[in-house]
């Protein structure tokens, strides 16, 4: 499609007025108002399902509002497709990057723009522009590097460069910090500050309160499709924002002193290869005692995914041992591990943990459909299955219209609660939870945390792998930091503090 090069008159003021977007059965946005000035970071805060993404998709031309108006510099404007929004000077950094992994940075930036040389490529010109922009905004990126070689943080910089190169003056950032290390987050915030200083307007979507408080000038909170309120960041507090988001106060976890139980899970000198055959877990030693949560903190890509898969029996172990309650399970498959008392919450919920097209009930039996409780000869025992499923749904407060609803129609939080219910219903003695609350709304996160703590108090040995340091610090009894395939430090929660753990996560240790 023809694209007229960066015309983008600077957006000084953008307003969304009384936006209504109705989906069948849900009013995703109900008279939502939002505005942003040049030189301002406006954060949009809300739980999953609050209507944040819907609102942003209308601003970016992906959906059209049913009612209400978008105004740029006071003029009403309608975006029928993203290209219209791009032309008007709006850029969007999606949560899942829209980059071609095999192409270089310059090629990705050049995509979707006409060459300055007609039919011939002008990658050198694009590269120069990239270098200039990256200096201007502190976005260090090598134009000739291939995307797949870059870290997640670098890929995000490429996305921002792309938007800037297209001439965007209003940039929407959809959960930009979800995938970043603490260091990368502070780099990103530095970049955002420079962009604001240059007169850009930023819309910053997040559910991480401390980031919103740190980076934004104003905050708008959405709940159930309605604007709860807009506050200048200086005039609000964490507690107020939480109350606005969830409509109630959140409870803080009580930490009981934990009795030192026996060793539940013992991992010795574990080595595991990655997808490309390179060694990615390089000698991990860990012991998780019964009645204890051991948190593994670390930046994504340091071997925690492979470690978790190897423990689940999904990835071969090249050296070392895995012992659960004295049984050596190093080389047995997944089913034997489950029999030995292991349960597993996989990181990629919809890929590995559940089947979206299956009903809620069918998902409850993904692992246990063979158990004599639920089968009679070759047939499934529907009555017993339904009873069991409805008990779990009730017990774990999974919100679903019926047991026959396809799982994918549920929200992320409810899907995760169902997976948790399924894995805990086997009464495991060892639980491995990988990123148990990633992308889950605050209410469900609270619930999942509470459940994990109860499970710990019941004597389960829990290995919690998470990239969310707050989560680790609020749940774990001990924190181990993984870096480059090794455990570079283990500290008790009592003495753990974010700064020193952050340094370990970044690979800074003696």
């Amino acid at each position, binding site marked *: 499609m023809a694209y007229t090069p960066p015309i983008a008159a600077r957006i000084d003021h953008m307003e969304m007025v009384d936006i209504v977007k109705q989906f069948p059965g849900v009013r995703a946005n109900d008279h939502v108002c939002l505005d942003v000035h040049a030189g301002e970071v406006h954060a949009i805060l809300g739980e999953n399902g609050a209507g944040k993404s819907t609102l942003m998709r209308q601003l970016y031309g992906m959906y059209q509002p049913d009612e209400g108006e978008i105004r740029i510099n006071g003029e009403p404007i309608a975006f029928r497709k993203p290209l219209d929004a791009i032309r008007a000077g709006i850029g969007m950094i999606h949560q899942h990057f829209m980059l071609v992994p095999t192409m270089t940075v310059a090629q990705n930036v050049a995509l979707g723009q006409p060459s300055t040389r007609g039919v011939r490529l002008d990658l050198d010109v694009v590269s120069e522009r990239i270098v200039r922009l990256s200096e201007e905004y502190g976005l260090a990126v090598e134009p000739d590097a291939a995307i797949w070689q870059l870290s997640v943080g670098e890929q995000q910089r490429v996305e921002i460069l792309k938007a800037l190169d297209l001439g965007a003056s209003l940039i929407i950032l959809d959960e930009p910090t979800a995938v970043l290390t603490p260091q990368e987050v502070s780099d990103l915030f530095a970049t955002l500050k420079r962009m604001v200083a240059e007169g850009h307007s930023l819309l910053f979507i997040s559910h991480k309160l401390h980031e919103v408080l740190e980076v934004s000038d104003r905050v708008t909170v959405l709940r159930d499709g309605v604007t709860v309120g807009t506050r200048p960041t200086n005039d609000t507090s964490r507690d107020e924002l939480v109350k606005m988001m969830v409509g109630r106060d959140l409870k803080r976890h009580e930490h009981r002193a934990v009795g030192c139980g026996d060793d539940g899970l013992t991992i010795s000198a574990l080595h595991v290869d990655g997808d490309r055959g390179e060694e990615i877990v390089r000698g991990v030693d860990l012991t998780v005692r019964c009645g204890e949560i051991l948190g593994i903190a670390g930046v994504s890509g340091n071997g925690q995914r492979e470690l978790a898969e190897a423990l689940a029996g999904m990835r071969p172990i090249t050296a070392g041992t895995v012992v659960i309650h004295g049984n050596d399970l190093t080389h047995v*498959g997944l089913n034997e591990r489950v029999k030995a008392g292991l349960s597993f919450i996989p990181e990629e919920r919809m890929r590995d943990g559940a089947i979206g097209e299956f009903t809620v009930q069918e998902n409850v039996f993904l692992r246990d459909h063979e158990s004599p409780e639920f089968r009679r000869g070759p047939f499934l025992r529907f009555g017993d299955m339904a009873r069991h499923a409805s008990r779990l749904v009730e017990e774990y407060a999974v919100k679903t219209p019926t047991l026959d609803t396809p799982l994918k129609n549920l929200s992320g939080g409810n899907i995760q609660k169902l997976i948790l219910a399924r894995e805990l219903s086997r009464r495991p003695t060892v639980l491995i939870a990988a990123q148990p609350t990633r992308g889950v709304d605050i209410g469900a996160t609270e619930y999942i945390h509470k459940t994990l703590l109860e499970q710990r108090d019941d004597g389960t040995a829990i290995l919690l792998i998470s990239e969310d340091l707050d989560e680790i610090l609020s749940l774990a009894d001990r924190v181990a930091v993984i870096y480059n395939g090794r455990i570079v430090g283990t500290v008790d929660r009592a003495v753990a503090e974010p700064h020193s753990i952050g340094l370990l996560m970044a690979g800074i240790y003696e």
Partner: protein
Amino acid sequence: MKRGDNDAKEFGIRLLVPTGGVASALFISALFLILLDANPVAAYGAMLRGAVGSTFGLTQTLVKATPLLLVGLGICIAFRARCINIGGRGQMIAGALLATSFALRFGAWPRPVLIATLIIMGFVGGAVWGFLPGFLKARFAVNEILTTIMMNSIALQLMNFLLQGPLMDPAGIEAGTFLAQSARLPEAARLARLVPRTLLHSGIFVSLAMAVVVYVFLWRTTLGYRVRATGLNPHASRYSGINVSIHQALSLTLAGGLAGMAGAIEVMGVHYRLVEEFTSGYGFTGIVAALLGWLHPLGLIPASLFFGGLLIGADTMQRAVQVPSALVNAILGLVVLFVSSSAVWTQQWIRRIRARGEVSS
């Protein structure tokens, strides 16, 4: 809840889009008919009369639907495990070969025993033909589309060889006609005809029963549950301790078995002997019938009746308006094309409705 509305809407789309596909195919074909100076109204009238306008036409429609349903059921199981079985033709041949050889040798067995055995033999023959691609896929990740197609050629050549050699009708050799066909099956091996002076045979009951069996298999047994899980999400299946490769191989084996059953029944009910080209496109038309039937065993029943009627009606039309037989094939091809592409369209449409039905954050 609005979910009910969406379900109703989805059902409507599933019904409407394929029907629209058939209508568009017939509309475009009408343009060709006009170009050939044939009256499309008369032509389609003849088609309808041929398919359902007379007792004979109706029975012929049912006769054609019988193998289509069985082949389609197999396609449906394979699809549910995310395997694409293009080998219906070869599997029919394998089943028919085994059943025919068995019938010619053990013709003296009591009739019910023999007939049951032959149908099972048909299943076994086809299952072997489906198992090989399944095994290759499970063990060496060989693409099943290619292997099932190649297995078609192998089966065809094997049948040609046998019909011109060991299986050739001794009567033909004696009479000097040397037709490539087997001897006639013994009486005890023939399926009962249901209506005098028609080809309608009791095999249709086997087909219908199998539709119910496949439905129960897929939705009421642990094995069927695993087959569906495998197809919908192999990753999650693996994480749940389900061996994905084995279930894919199994689905192809079962698909082959059902097609083989169709081959045996076709020989036992219609031809009373193995003849060349007895598969007459059922292997491929079965795929389209399966798609039109929403890959659901019970949806397949009307879908195979429809395609059976289309095959019969096209013959009548050809005779009635004197169009070249190539055009009839073209019309069938268009229907197939429109219906199979509309299946994709249905999916997209439904996905859009569902996406709209969800709240995004």
